[in-house]
């Protein structure tokens, strides 16, 4: 199929449509709004459901209701809006419903700004809503990958009755790139045996996240956690670049991973043996791949557009086998390849201090720069 030049947010919307999304519910927020606008145009055209909700709180609960019918449903938002959705996300997880959510992250905390950020990592990967649930989290690094991961998101959501978050950011959402869209899938006509559709011809069903009996709730939690083990065993995805002989390994996700790749290429051109691991699934996290890399690497450099959130997961995976360094930008300031390159050069030059936490070393270095 021919490639089309598309904006990230619109490409995600079209990919979702082609993956057979039956209903979309959302609320405007920059830098995600084009997704909602695109849906407002395309969904009615196809006879599908589009509702602009009165808030993200309502949007996620409309998604909750629609997901109960067993159809493919989704919402999208950006950081502050996603925060507002968290109660509903937990309910959806507690009801074991397949739902796709797109978070086009921006600078924060608070209202922050509309520039790209990655500060929602902890919220999305390590919880966000209350209670013990896990969400599958996919982190695209390009418009093409946004398309591919959106389609995958619907499949994984259904396969595991799970929430799947496509964790994008303002740069990927806003940029235009050529991409190949998937073929149009027909809408589902068969629905799972848990779907609430009206009880005609069968016994009644109900869907809820309530479980007043702690023992029963614990059994449910065990069941879901065993399913999570299956997800960990089968769904870890990551990309490796220049890893064969790498003595230094950069680790970054999403747009930062992509920026890091430019820096790694430039460092290779200077003869520095550096590689890159770009986690594509942030949950389940590519812990094994990183643990393995820690065996071969002298130093691992984690780069993120936040205050060092994935950093903690990398440190756990590295388990002291390699030194871990961190470099971050925050508040919506975009990381440039030159910055990552100069970090790689600093590390390759050796003589690094191992005092304290990598985040503190980074904070101290950035204080000295000023």
């Amino acid at each position: 199929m021919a490639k089309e030049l598309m904006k990230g947010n619109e490409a995600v919307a079209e990919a979702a449509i082609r993956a057979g999304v039956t209903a979309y519910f959302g609320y405007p927020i920059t830098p995600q709004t084009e997704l909602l606008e695109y849906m407002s145009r395309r969904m009615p055209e196809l006879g599908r459901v589009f509702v602009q909700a009165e808030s993200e709180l309502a949007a996620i609960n409309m998604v909750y209701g629609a997901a109960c019918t067993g159809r493919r449903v989704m919402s999208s938002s950006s950081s502050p809006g996603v925060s507002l959705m968290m109660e509903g996300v937990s309910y959806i997880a507690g009801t074991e419903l397949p739902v796709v959510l797109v978070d086009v992250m921006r600078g924060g905390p608070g209202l922050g700004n509309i520039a790209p950020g990655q500060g929602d990592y902890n919220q999305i990967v390590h919880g966000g809503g209350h209670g013990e649930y896990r969400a599958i989290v996919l982190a695209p690094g390009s418009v093409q990958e946004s398309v591919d991961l959106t389609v995958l998101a619907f499949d994984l959501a259904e396969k595991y009755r799970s929430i799947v978050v496509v964790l994008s950011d303002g740069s990927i959402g806003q940029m235009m790139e050529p991409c190949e869209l998937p073929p149009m899938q027909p809408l589902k006509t068969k629905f799972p045996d848990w779907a609430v559709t009206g009880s005609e011809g069968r016994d009644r069903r109900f869907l809820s996240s309530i479980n007043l009996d702690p023992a029963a709730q614990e059994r449910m939690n065990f069941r879901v956690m065993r399913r999570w083990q299956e997800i960990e065993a089968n769904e870890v995805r990551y990309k490796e670049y220049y890893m064969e002989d790498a003595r230094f390994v950069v680790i970054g996700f999403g747009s930062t991973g992509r920026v890091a790749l430019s820096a790694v290429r430039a460092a290779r051109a200077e003869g520095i043996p550096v590689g890159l691991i770009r986690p594509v699934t942030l949950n389940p996290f590519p812990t094994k791949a990183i643990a393995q890399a820690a065996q071969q690497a002298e130093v691992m450099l984690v780069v993120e557009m936040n205050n060092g959130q994935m950093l903690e997961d990398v440190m756990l995976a590295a388990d002291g086998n390699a030194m871990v360094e961190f470099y971050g930008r925050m508040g919506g300031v975009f990381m440039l390849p030159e910055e990552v390159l100069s970090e790689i050069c600093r590390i390759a030059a050796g003589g690094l201090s191992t005092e304290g936490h990598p985040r503190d070393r980074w904070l101290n270095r950035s204080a000295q720069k000023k």
Partner: protein
Amino acid sequence: MEMNSQVIEEQVYNRPDSFVDVSTHYCPGCTHGTAHRLIAEVIDEMGLKGKTIGVASVGCSVFAYNYFDVDFVQAPHGRAPAMATGVKRVLPERVVFTYQGDGDLASIGTAEIVHAAARGENISVFFLNNTNYGMTGGQMAPTTLPGQKTTSSPRGRDVETQGYPVKASEMISTLDGASYVVRRSLHDPKSIRLAKKAIRTAFEVQIRGLGFSLVELLSTCSTNWGMTPVESMHWLENNMVPYFPLGDFKVHPAIAGLRF
């Protein structure tokens, strides 16, 4: 003897088919059970059992799904109208209703109910107003009357600091998207009959595709009010009805003359 008893026994009361044969968790004297039964009777009479999807809310009626023999989902506190919107938009041929308390509908869920009505969402809402937060033990609700004592207005609701009750039905009836908004009561047989008619009308509105319908039902909460069931019925009649007048606030012309 046998002949005689056959003559004497005439069944005047039956458990509705859509009403599951279990005893409810509601307190003695609580009108949630009455409201449930009326809804189940109407579902039966209209032959809607297999087509209906209920949306339970958070409050004493959180377990409503245990009592209706229809498909059910259960929403987070206040979000039932949003959840019902999601269900109804995907399954427009189904009859979708929410069942919400006054804390759920008129406090934490105010935005959702207002906007579901404003969109003319084709759902029916049954709104139980018992002037307090029953499930959490009787705290002040948006509907608590001025001067009324609750566990969080122990000296009586002081309107200077705690504001005035919300008349949700009157407010919602001002929205163009709302087609049927009425208030009824459950304190005596006559009121209960009228309440049932209103519930029926709400479903008729939905089936005709006329949009949003809401029936507010003035209800009792004997346990948290600290009254006997009979005292509660009198308290409702003497205190709630004057503040929350019964009546029709909005009736779509297409159903104005409806008789059943």
